[in-house]
């Protein structure tokens, strides 16, 4: 025994120190593992992380003003917005020079759309002015202030210039402020007028309704998963198909089917009226409101709860229950103290899946949600596809992502992420 300690470091078979040899082997192992997952890693980076990052970056990016009217931005910085007076001729001349270049590149209308998000009316101001300024000659037509005022009264209002000045930076906090029902005004961040406040309400509603949907999924899925896990294989497989069949059906078909079921002249109301439980005159309103969204989304997301629960329950030996009972436990105690704790990882996995899926849903709420059952994602969809205000959409998306990560972190702290099992 004392031999080996006396002769220095332990050597491997090829004569290198064992420590070094082990480290080498470990490094080789790690490299091989990395190489094996490299295709997936690169794919995820290129097709997922990078585009999402790029999209989220739009929420603070604001190059368009400084790029389209660079001279004006410089001149306008010298103007004191609080003076209540219009900018001087230098600003108007710079604007004329910038606009001539912008019109040639057809960039002035794009700037108008951008600034219209901040002040209604600027879109047509830039579009109309573009048509007139096209005919100007920069060398001979000075001074420009009167000429601008002739084209459109807008150029003679302090607010227009304040808006341009406020939003001329290359980075902006404006979109994030908009996303939480505030705005970037010349005097700094301010609340939106109350009549336009909607986004915070939608964030809250999305969170609360997603939680309700998750809880109703847990309540409905638990007994189903239990039966699936404890029936003989042949019967269980048949039932499994019943769970999977709706899972394979198109989302739109299932949502439309709920419409047929839930509407006032629909199947459920017809049956209730026929049974005499509900008077024909006051049929139940179960769709185009929050009830409709909760019912339809619970049904659509149910398989995402059943499957992880089932795969966890399958691994819990039924003999534990019998052992508990043989030791004197009642049915309830055996279930609650022995079985349930072991099934918690399945509930955790299912809940995370269902919750994260449901806060991002927008097709189902759009179809069955009416006015009070729509989510924040419906607003994001509007800004992506209709208003083209991608900056605001990115800010809303970033906030949603942050909320999910915070909830995930809280979940990890409270339940522990090691307690989540998909099978």
């Amino acid at each position: 025994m004392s031999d080996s300690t006396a002769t220095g470091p332990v050597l491997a078979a090829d004569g290198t120190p064992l420590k070094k040899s082990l480290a080498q082997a470990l490094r080789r192992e790690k490299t091989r593992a990395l190489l094996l997952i490299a295709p997936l890693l690169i794919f995820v980076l290129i097709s997922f992380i990078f585009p999402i990052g790029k999209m989220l970056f739009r929420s603070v990016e604001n190059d368009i003003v400084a790029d389209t009217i660079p001279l004006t931005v410089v001149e306008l910085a010298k103007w004191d917005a609080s003076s209540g007076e219009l900018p001087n001729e230098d600003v108007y001349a710079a604007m004329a020079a910038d606009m001539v270049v912008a019109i040639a590149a057809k960039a002035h209308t794009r700037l108008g759309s951008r600034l219209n998000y901040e002040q209604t009316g600027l879109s047509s101001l830039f579009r109309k002015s573009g048509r007139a300024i096209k005919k100007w000659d920069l060398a001979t037509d000075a001074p420009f202030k009167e000429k601008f005022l002739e084209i459109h009264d807008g150029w003679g209002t302090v607010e227009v210039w304040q808006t341009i000045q406020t939003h001329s930076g290359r980075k902006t906090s404006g979109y994030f402020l908009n996303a939480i029902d505030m705005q970037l005004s010349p005097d700094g961040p301010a609340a939106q007028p109350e009549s336009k406040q909607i986004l915070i309400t939608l964030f809250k509603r999305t969170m609360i309704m997603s939680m309700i949907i998750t809880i109703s999924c847990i309540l409905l899925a638990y007994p189903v998963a239990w039966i699936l896990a404890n029936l003989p294989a042949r019967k269980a497989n048949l039932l499994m198909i019943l769970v999977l069949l709706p899972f394979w059906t198109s989302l739109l078909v299932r949502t439309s089917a709920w419409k047929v079921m839930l509407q006032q002249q629909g199947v459920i109301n017809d049956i209730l009226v026929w049974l005499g439980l509900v008077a024909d005159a006051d049929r139940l309103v179960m769709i185009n409101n929050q009830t409709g969204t909760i019912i339809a989304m619970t049904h659509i997301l149910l398989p995402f709860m059943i499957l992880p629960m089932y795969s966890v329950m399958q691994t819990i030996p039924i003999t534990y229950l019998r052992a508990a009972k043989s030791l004197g436990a009642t049915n309830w105690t055996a279930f609650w103290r022995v079985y349930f704790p072991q099934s918690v990882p399945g509930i955790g996995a299912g809940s995370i899946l269902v919750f994260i899926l449901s806060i991002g849903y927008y097709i189902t709420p759009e179809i069955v949600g009416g006015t009070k059952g729509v989510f924040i994602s419906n607003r994001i969809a509007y800004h992506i596809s209709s208003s083209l205000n991608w900056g605001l959409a990115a800010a809303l998306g970033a906030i949603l992502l942050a909320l999910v990560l915070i909830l995930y972190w809280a979940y990890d702290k409270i339940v522990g992420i090691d307690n989540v099992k998909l099978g």
Partner: protein
Amino acid sequence: MSFTKTLLVSTAVAAMAVGPAFADGHMANELTIVSWGGAYSKSQKLAYHDPYAANTGITIINDDSSAEAVAKLRAMNEANNVTWDVVDAEAADAIRLCDEGLAMEIDPDTMLAAAPDGTSARDDFGALLVSECFIPQIVYSTTFGYRTDLVGDTPPSKICDVFDLEAYPGKRSLEKRPINNMEWALLCDGVAKDAVYDVLATPEGQDQALAKLGTIKDSVIWWSAGADTPQLLADGEVIMGSTYNGRLFSLIVEQNQPVAMMWDAQVFSLDGWIIPTGLSPERQARALDYIMFATDTQRLADQSKYISYGPARASSAPLVGKHAELGIDMAPHMPTDPNNAKNTFLYNLEFWADYRDDIDAKFQAWLAK
């Protein structure tokens, strides 16, 4: 003959065969056309695509993505990979695309066909050329349909009947956006027709319109897809509802439902083509060639055989004939027919381009309350 020679000769023969196709303007042999799908795309296929493909031998690929066209075109443009050649868009979207520099400018004098009597395209389309990038195709209207069996003995005939819950109790369906609804509300709140947009430009006017809509808010089902109102009417979920006139036409005439039209204060709007910017010269030439063909007087009149939308050219109106399958006269079903167009409202595109986001935010906040 050596192998090289054979190759050379066969290449020359092939080049001669292909030559003429390149000679007339170097055009691409494929055309991707984006439209709305359903009965509307079918009418375009029968009236425009099939004859054009038969004349030129090119392949036309249909893509039913018009509903997402604005966002997708912007994404394609940023990726420098525009895969669409011709896109069907609403006038409001066309203006937005033009503003964003995503649609190319069209010169009606050189790029569109003159009418058979020699009237220039610019005069033939007239005021419907609402944007430099927009080639009008149809005039459609957003109007009301009502259930003949659920509205009592005196069917609704005026737009304000929509707001009259006493005379017409029951649900009505309205679109889940401010456009059209705000105008109708103001009209029925005593605002003169030509003052509507002046009033709507002020916050007080917007509140006034929302207050008027508030009187029926609890009786409204809000729709977001054009097919919703026809379905709601057919199921008896609503007694009246707004939608596009072509949808109501197919519900009434093709599906024989107990529904009738109420044309009062119908709002005219336009739908047409745009050509995306950033196409290669060959593809652009092909797209322009298609547009020249598909928007001539006869072709626009042909489309009305299949769907009840009015052709955008003045010279096409006299050529509107009978429905291709049902054999009924199409003229009385057109929104532009004098009997239907006694009281119409012209949708102000310029106003909504400016105010859409602002009023939409207010409208959605109001809906959520």
